[in-house]
């Protein structure tokens, strides 16, 4: 069900996230927001994503924090168990590596360890991905590092409306959610007209970003746009590509993927983080396990280079997955 859009201004990815936070705070007093520089005195975040929130909801519910990622995620864990709906911001997902204990040893497990007595409905928002020369320590995507952890949900939207709808769902979800926002989507990602009351997107449900019949590309986050560009490029040669935007990485929408794969029999999995031991391994394996005898050829995986992210612009772009990497894989898949 799509709500009729009445606004005419086009919303950026930032707008989608900002409005989701705003609407969530307006509708539920349990929603609180904290992270480095997120209050308005500090500019509403380095990308102004939280701008206006502390002015509107007060500095008790919207707080800038010290540079203390363990304290940030830990505070979210405790507050969530106590009854709040914390949305903690970790500036870049690379810094989750100092707070991984709170997320993976605690947030993900406390419900289970308590035998279901307590729940941990927190959301950790964080920026991921390579763009514009931030170098090796600021550009990773920690998707597979956390997907393996039982008890976490991982969400990675590609569009403003999905950012809105998925973030609302994360905040309303009873479980800990990691919300990955690709940096590139903040700079030049597509804009969309958002409805007055944009719809929520359920977790765990993929979106057919482009329907097609010949090859399925399974992807998520920023790479969705590269996949769409690749689909467009091969369309000229009569190759009709279906692009599935997973939106939720864990738990992912197996049903939608398997249905599409059964139809097209040719599948490419594409994501920005490296292929080895990446998310694609799970998707590829599940497709083989379920559809082995029906496939025209093996599921192909493409990603960025399995190296740290280099600084120099020429190297960064050589490192990164892009439309042409995906196009090559699509063409290879059609040969099978």
């Amino acid at each position: 069900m799509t709500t009729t859009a009445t606004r005419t201004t086009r919303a950026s990815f930032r707008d989608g996230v900002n409005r989701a936070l705003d609407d969530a705070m307006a509708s539920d007093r349990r929603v609180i927001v904290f992270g480095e520089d997120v209050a308005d005195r500090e500019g509403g975040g380095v990308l102004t994503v939280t701008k206006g929130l502390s002015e509107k909801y007060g500095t008790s519910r919207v707080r800038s924090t010290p540079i203390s990622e363990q304290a940030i995620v830990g505070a979210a864990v405790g507050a969530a168990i106590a009854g709040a709906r914390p949305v903690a911001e970790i500036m870049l997902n690379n810094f989750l590596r100092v707070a991984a204990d709170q997320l993976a040893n605690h947030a993900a497990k406390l419900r289970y360890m308590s035998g279901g007595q307590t729940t941990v409905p927190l959301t950790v928002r964080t920026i991921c991905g390579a763009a514009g020369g931030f170098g090796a320590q600021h550009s990773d995507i920690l998707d597979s590092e956390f997907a393996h952890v039982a008890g976490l949900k991982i969400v990675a939207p590609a569009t403003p409306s999905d950012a809105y709808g998925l973030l609302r769902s994360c905040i309303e979800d009873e479980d800990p959610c990691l919300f990955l926002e690709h940096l590139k989507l903040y700079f030049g990602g597509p804009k969309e007209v958002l409805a007055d009351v944009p719809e929520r997107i359920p977790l765990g449900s993929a979106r057919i970003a482009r329907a097609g019949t010949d090859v399925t590309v399974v992807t998520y986050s920023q790479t969705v746009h590269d996949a769409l560009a690749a689909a467009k490029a091969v369309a000229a040669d009569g190759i009709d590509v279906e692009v599935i935007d997973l939106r939720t990485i864990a738990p992912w929408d197996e049903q939608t993927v398997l249905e599409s794969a059964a139809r097209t029999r040719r599948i490419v999995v594409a994501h920005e983080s490296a292929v080895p031991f990446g998310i694609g391994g799970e998707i590829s394996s599940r497709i083989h396990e379920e559809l082995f005898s029906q496939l025209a050829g093996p599921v192909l995986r493409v990603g960025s280079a399995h190296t740290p992210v280099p600084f120099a612009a020429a190297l960064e772009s050589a490192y990164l997955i892009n439309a042409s990497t995906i196009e090559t894989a699509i063409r290879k898949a059609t040969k099978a």
Partner: protein
Amino acid sequence: MPASTKIISAVDLYRTMYTIKECDDQFWTLMQSGQVVLNYYSPRGQEAVATGICAALDSTDYLVTTYRGLHDHLAKGVPLSDLWAEFLGRATGTCKGKGGPMHITHPDSGLMVTTGVVGSGLPIANGFALWSQINGDGRVTACSFGDGASNIGAFHEALNLASVWKLPVIFVCHNNLYAEHTALAAGTGVTRIADRAASYGMVGVQVDGNDPLAVRDAAAEAVARARAGEGPTLIEAVTFRFRGHQFGDPGEYIDKAEMAAARERDPLPRLRARLLDEFGASPDELTALEDEVRAAVTQAAKDALATPEPSVEELFTDVFATTAGGAA
């Protein structure tokens, strides 16, 4: 009833301490006999810390503790039977046997989190206090940790954040002078852990952790400060650990004389003597109390041993509270 007006007699404190000691003794006996196999971290020697702190807390106040948490669990009011069952991994345990001794949770008594990761409880305790502060529910959160934990990053981040936000939280360092096999001075750059409070503009107090009344008084002050919105306190309660780091640790790294001196300060006989000398308790009364406690613990142990382990289906429950649409 706010803690400040709660009247807990010295005899009540002794009852709690004796319950802790008795549980510990009975676990120990069961393990020694091989009837029970457990990764067990004894709180023997530290009874007065938990007891004194919890005497200053209301039942609705929160407590976050560690793997060495039995004393805290009992002092905060986790029911004996549920606790025993959880320690032995039974379906009737606080956490259906899924958490175990290192992960006791019992929200009804305010025992919110027991963590097995050193130092990780402190940031979480802040979260409880944060929500109390925003919510205005007047609750205070206490958080137990060891001397060794005061050297880990999470301690630093948590105390700083609590101070900056003036959170209603009390950080309770159970300084038993050892972190596993490492003596305090070998791992810690400071002699008095309470002094570390100064790094955060926080009040820090050191108390005799073998004196439950002294601990209670320090805690009551900290609770009052927290409830008044004046922020967190670091309490260092100096005590000792009589049974090594964990069951099976022979404790060879502890000097005999050091151990003997520590035994002189055993909080249980000490309080018992004071009850008789200062508080007018009679030997009979105390013996009766002890017998009663022993009987209750024996019963809890018996019941726990008789209850079944959780059914195998429980393996897959409680991972998520809500299952997402297309989830596997």
